[in-house]
């Protein structure tokens, strides 16, 4: 088994389109949540979204080619290029063929689907663009990353709703650890703030009208976000061999299915995934300092996740710093786990944990340390990133400070 390290990060988020600006926003406790710009707020009852309003496609893509990429693929390519650039890898020849591309997404090219079907059903169009399917397919982002970054190894998309990115990164970790690939570009991307999807979310009646306040008293639900994050993983020996700057080591990956309910969370299923990640990483629970929680801000998730942390960590749960960065960027669904693992890696590297903002006070059912409202300087030797999807699909990654 090979050791697997992180050598590059990339982010496109509502609070920053570089890792530096994203991280600065997180530790400043800056909210990127605002009324939707598109679809216009007047068409939906959704009060808040984590939308990236200043994303400039033409700053990143050739005007002649940009039409081939749905917004979801554009986010992924921009984040992947950052992660690749930071790693300093030169993907040519055999290394390109030994580099995997695994990208999680909950909805794929959703705005292409929404726009195309609107043309047909509402505008009476009789034909669609020939790029409709290649833009909309779930794996389009993985394909576009491979095209733009010259990755020629194993490549595919992973879909598990809100856990997609974490499953994707976990699969890439396993592949690199097992020797199936030397390097991997992996993460998640989502761009599904469309009229159709927002109406679907509204119908579930779990959207917060005021703010996303995970684990807090008077929390009123979740806020939908969008964005992408990508990581460069590689074997330790490869990273060392080229003198790369190692940001953190990925040590464990755990997965589980609740097998209980399509929408209701289940603390025992969550705990099985957390404990599996710790065990996979040979990480004793009391070695973990920071949890980047799934923390959606719904009453049900946050209670169940708190209970799961107590099951997996026992008494040590009370000594953990637990925060939900969704309070700042919203729930980016299939991209969330990657945005959150980037936050956990940065927490390890910078010895600062980002806060849970909007926190009003303790809910008796959520009685851990949620790093309320202000970032905290503290050593982070090991961190865990949780993702728990609708449908009971759970994925958890454990990372630790690289110590030679």
């Amino acid at each position, binding site marked *: 088994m090979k050791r697997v390290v992180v050598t590059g990060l990339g982010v496109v988020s509502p609070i920053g389109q570089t890792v530096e600006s994203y991280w600065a926003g997180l530790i400043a406790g800056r909210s990127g949540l605002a009324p939707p710009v598109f679809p216009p707020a007047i068409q939906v009852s959704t009060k808040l979204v984590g939308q990236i309003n200043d994303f400039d496609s033409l700053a990143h893509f050739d005007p002649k080619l940009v039409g081939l990429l749905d917004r979801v693929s554009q986010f992924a390519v921009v984040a992947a290029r950052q992660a690749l650039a930071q790693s300093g890898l030169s993907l040519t020849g055999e290394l390109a063929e030994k580099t995997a591309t695994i990208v999680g997404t909950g909805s794929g090219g959703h705005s292409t689907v929404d726009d195309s079907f609107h043309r047909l059903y509402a505008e009476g169009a009789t034909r669609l663009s020939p790029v409709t399917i290649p833009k909309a397919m779930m794996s389009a982002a993985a394909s576009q990353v491979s095209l733009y970054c010259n990755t020629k190894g194993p490549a595919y998309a992973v879909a598990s709703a809100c856990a997609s990115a974490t499953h994707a990164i976990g699969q890439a970790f396993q592949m690199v650890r097992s020797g199936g690939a030397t390097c991997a570009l992996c993460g998640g991307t989502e761009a599904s703030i469309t009229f159709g999807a927002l109406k679907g979310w509204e119908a579930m009646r*779990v959207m917060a009208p005021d703010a996303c306040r995970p684990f807090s008293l008077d929390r009123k639900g979740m806020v939908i976000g969008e964005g992408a994050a990508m990581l460069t993983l590689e074997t330790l020996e490869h990273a060392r061999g080229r003198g790369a700057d190692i940001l953190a080591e990925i040590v464990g990956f755990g997965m589980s299915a609740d097998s209980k309910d399509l929408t*209701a969370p289940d603390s025992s299923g969550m705990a099985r995934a957390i404990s599996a990640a710790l065990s996979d990483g040979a990480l004793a629970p009391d070695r973990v300092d920071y949890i980047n929680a799934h923390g959606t801000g719904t009453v049900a998730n946050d209670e169940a996740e708190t209970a799961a942390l107590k099951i997996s960590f026992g008494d040590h749960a009370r000594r953990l710093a637990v925060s939900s960065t969704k309070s700042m960027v919203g729930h980016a669904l299939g991209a969330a786990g990657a945005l959150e693992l980037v936050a956990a890696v940065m927490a390890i590297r910078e010895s600062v944990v980002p806060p849970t903002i909007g926190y009003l006070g303790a809910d008796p059912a959520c009685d851990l340390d949620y790093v309320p409202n202000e970032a905290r300087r503290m050593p982070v030797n090991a961190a865990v990133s949780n993702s728990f999807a609708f449908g009971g699909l759970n994925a958890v990654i454990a990372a630790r400070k690289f110590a030679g």
Partner: protein
Amino acid sequence: MPDVRNEITQIITAKMTDNVPLNLADPFVDLGFNSFEVVELIFDIEEKFDIQIPFNANFDIEAKTVADLIQTVEGLVADKAKLA
């Protein structure tokens, strides 16, 4: 003007599996439904009357009773009749 109370009572009791009588003063959380089943009930009632009912599953399931819902729907149906 439709008989809102009767229609809503029928929609809810048709979905009730536990053999408990429907008490209009009960909050939804006590009716034996899980939260998603309550969300589906609200949708069925919206479809029946073609209205939009404000209801957040995070807190209204505990905060609101069936009687509250009937009152809300009666108001919404009356508003709609005025506009028609």
